[in-house]
């Protein structure tokens, strides 16, 4: 290769390298926190689907989450433990993503005039802005159902089931949620496969194919599962 005067920063050899200071370590943190989110959305989706069992089953599940483990745990103790784990995971996930995003921008400061994306699925190119969209959605979602408890129909907010039905009877709220779930599906489609690869579990063609297929199936199941309740509320199947 050419050995001419080099002006970039990388002319020296790194000494005393640490594995935990590498970009791959940031990716491992993203994969680990992402795995926690996958577990969370699966359980969350199951809870939502309880709406098909009717008002009492849904509210009993919501109350059950709060009384879980009492009296060893205080009322709502489990929820607060889960919330703490999720908040820490979110901070780690977003911090690593932002750091790697900045690095990627610096790695190519002059863009190609023409660039094809051969070999890339669309979802993989949606990860960063899709992730930002999901972050905005999560803030909105928490304000609506957890922190603020806003009932756009003006009804009561202390009954979880009725709050859900009132909310998704509003067409634009249902639309926001369906768009967010499409984003979540895309994020999971690439993210689940990417996590297996980052954790070093896809060292053969067979395991790679399996990981990619599983990622697609899980993404469809989760995004689809979450979408069912809003759709069926709007369609008038799930009612008060």
């Amino acid at each position, binding site marked *: *290769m*050419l*050995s*001419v*005067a*080099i*002006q*970039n*920063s*990388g*002319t*020296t*050899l*790194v000494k005393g*390298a*640490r*594995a*935990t*200071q*590498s*970009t*791959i370590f*940031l*990716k*491992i943190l993203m994969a680990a926190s992402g795995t926690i989110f996958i577990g969370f959305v699966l359980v969350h989706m199951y809870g939502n689907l309880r709406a098909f069992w009717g008002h009492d089953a849904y509210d009993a599940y919501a109350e059950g989450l709060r009384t879980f483990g009492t009296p060893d745990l205080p009322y709502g103790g489990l929820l607060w433990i889960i919330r703490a784990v999720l908040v820490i995971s979110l901070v780690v996930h977003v911090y690593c993503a932002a750091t*790697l995003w900045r*690095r*990627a921008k*610096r*790695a*190519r*400061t*002059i*863009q*190609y*005039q*023409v*660039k*094809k*994306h*051969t*070999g*890339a*699925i669309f979802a*993989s*190119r949606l*990860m960063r802005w899709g992730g930002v969209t999901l972050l905005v959605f999560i803030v909105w979602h928490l304000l609506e159902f957890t922190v603020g408890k806003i009932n756009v129909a003006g009804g009561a907010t202390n009954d979880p089931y009725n709050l859900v039905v009132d909310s998704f009877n509003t067409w634009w709220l249902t639309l926001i949620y369906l768009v967010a779930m499409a984003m979540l599906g895309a994020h999971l489609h*690439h993210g689940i*496969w*990417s996590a297996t*690869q*980052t*954790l*070093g*579990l*896809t*060292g*053969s063609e067979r*395991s*790679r194919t399996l990981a990619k297929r599983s990622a697609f199936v899980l993404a469809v199941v989760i995004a689809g599962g979450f979408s069912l309740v809003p759709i069926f509320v709007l369609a008038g199947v799930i009612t008060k």
Partner: protein
Amino acid sequence: MKLTLKIWRQPDAATAGSMHTYDVDDVSGDMSFLEMLDVLNEQLNAKGEEPIAFDSDCREGICGMCGLMINGEAHGPVTTTTCQLHMRSFSDGDTITIEPWRSTAFPVVKDLVVDRGAFDRIIQQGGYISVNTGSAPEAHSVQVPKEAADRAFDVATCIGCGACVAACPNGSASLFMGAKITHLGELPQGQAERDSRVVNMVAQHDHEGFGGCTNIGECTAACPKEIPLDVISQLNRDLRTAIKHGH
């Protein structure tokens, strides 16, 4: 064949470049892409203009020297090196955009020539095995399972051309590193330095300004040697193992 070429021209590393348009006639489908550029350069020479600088060496697809971004694809539309890409892959009247590899770690030297010294420094950080010199040991004294030998050989076909970096939206060299890590990691001789190799190579990769991998897969699609994505999984796994071993 008559072609319109849009080519990046840049006099030197310190001066800003821009795209220039050239017409080239009498291109035969049997010409390689580099021969087509040779024809253009002869025309430019005849007119007293500065010929276009581009890298090439073996012109047999085995050295990794040539590398051009052709119509947005590293080494063009065929899975091979630029020197082994033939003009029959294009049609009469086509417009072809030719750019250098775009990576902060591969600064442009002139026109389409980039400095890939960053790859050399990554190799310097562990892309080798340390052996004592002396008489060669008996070949059968170190046995290698057939599957391991095959995999090591397959990924050892990486020629370090840099197409993976050029194609990657993050400008990551993970496929290159993964190929080297897998090549040496599959063999008994590579075990002694396995942990330090991955840690030092990745640290040099990051230091050179390459981006992080997001497993998009454009690298493997662009690779003229078809290095598979599973070498990046191997790279990640080796780094995780090194962390466990306290590196």
